[in-house]
């Protein structure tokens, strides 16, 4: 828990040609140590997802650099970084097992090797017995578990999660949150978790990074000093409320419904 596994240095992002377009991020400096669970919150449209797509290597920043393990990210680095999206985005023609194995298939790992690996990941995410189901035969929560298993199958050091539970109902979200914490404590990944939900951010993370309205700047960096393992009763506690309130003070002025 010392070395910065993900380092974002002086990153700005503009969309559109010749800097004439919209500024999404402005001067972001951020270091995430190895093994940390960091949540990113901020008002709608503040560039949270853009930040993740930069770390995923899906786009290049207009200015600044993004480093993973000391190496500049110029393209997706699937062996180091696993990405989980708001929608499960499973390939509908592949079974749950084949979906989890898909990143390995892209790397031409032999079937005899990739399918057992995928099976282990499905077991880790609690989906043993559902290997042969097609995505449309799974519930929303199960699909997202498959997506998490797919994100973990290459054993990446970093897990990027872009509002992964936002399209699930509240109960499923809570169950999956606890599952995620269990998986995280077993695998000790570095997690960068974008969310709309302050509850979710404080409940899951070691640290909550608060972005301002567009263009996104870091306005606060809150260390969540709640003990682990986290429990549901903590979320009714005073400390939990105080942390949430501190974050909310930054966001409420920016949200104009």
């Amino acid at each position, binding site marked *: 828990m010392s070395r910065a596994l993900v380092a974002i240095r002086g990153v700005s992002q503009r969309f559109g040609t010749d800097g004439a377009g919209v500024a999404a991020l402005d001067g972001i400096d951020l270091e995430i140590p190895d093994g940390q669970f960091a949540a990113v919150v901020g008002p709608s449209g503040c560039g949270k997802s853009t930040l993740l797509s930069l770390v995923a290597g899906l786009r290049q920043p207009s200015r600044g650099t993004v480093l993973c393990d000391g190496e500049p990210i110029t393209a*997706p*680095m699937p*062996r180091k970084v696993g990405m989980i*999206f708001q929608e499960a985005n499973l390939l509908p*023609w592949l079974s749950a097992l084949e979906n989890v194995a898909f*990143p390995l298939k*892209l790397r031409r790992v032999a079937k005899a090797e990739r399918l057992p690996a995928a099976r282990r990941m499905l077991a880790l995410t609690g989906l043993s017995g559902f290997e042969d189901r097609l995505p*449309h035969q799974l519930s929303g929560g199960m699909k997202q578990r498959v997506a998490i298993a*797919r994100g973990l199958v290459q054993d990446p050091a970093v897990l990027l999660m872009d509002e992964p539970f936002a399209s699930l109902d509240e109960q499923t979200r809570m169950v999956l949150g606890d599952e995620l914490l269990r998986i995280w404590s077993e695998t000790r990944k570095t997690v960068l978790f974008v969310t709309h939900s302050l509850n979710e951010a404080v409940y899951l993370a070691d640290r909550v990074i608060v972005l301002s309205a567009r263009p996104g700047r870091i306005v606060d960096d809150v260390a969540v000093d709640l003990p682990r393992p986290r429990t549901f009763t903590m979320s009714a506690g005073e400390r939990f409320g105080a942390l949430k309130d501190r974050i909310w003070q930054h966001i409420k002025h920016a949200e104009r419904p």
Partner: protein
Amino acid sequence: MRRHERLIVAAASLALFALWEGLARLGLVDPSLAPAPSVVAAALVRLAGRPEVLASLGVTAWEVAAAFLLATPLGLGLGFLLAEVPALGALFRPLVNFLFGVPKSIFLPVFILVFGVSIPQKIAFGVFTTIFVLIVGGIAAVQSVPPELITVSRAYGASRAQIAREIYLPAMAPILLESARLGMVFNITAVLLCEIYGARDGIGYRIASWGENLQMPQLYAALVIVAAAAVAVNEALRAVESRLGAWRERA
């Protein structure tokens, strides 16, 4: 269909044929216009044994197959191009949509002028009639590929070739096959129309001449053969389509 539904359909069809047979035998319908099914069946057996009829079927099958094999890759390829190259799409899609809606049969005299009454003319007209279905199908197939699956694959390090093979191809397969099947229906219609309109051989040519000579049993027997062949091709394509498209949520 469930089992009892199949039984009902079979029974209804049989009843219809029995009614037709009865009406024809009783002289209540004109047998020179609607010969009894038993007469048609006898004609069918006779036709199936005549080499020149089989040769005509072969000519038609060759024209249909050639037109299909030319039109399918060409049409789908053009469709992909129009979908993937925005400038070309903007330029040509209005024209394609316009021609898609125009009845192609009005162009048949032009094809006779250009190619003469010949087998290439049948094939060319088949291609011309079919290709618009396939262009439009090709465009629809490309547009049916979910962009978020491409993003996911890119995040997991997929190359362009891998995205084409692992995402585009399986995502488009059901619509591609559906377009091919629809195209085939248009194609068969076009080739038969050509043959009936003017030809030296082919089953359409035979149908036209039997019709002119009021040889109704032969005419109906030929219709049965053509219908059976068309349904067989259609169902074969549909079987492949539903196998490759089983992941779609219509189960």
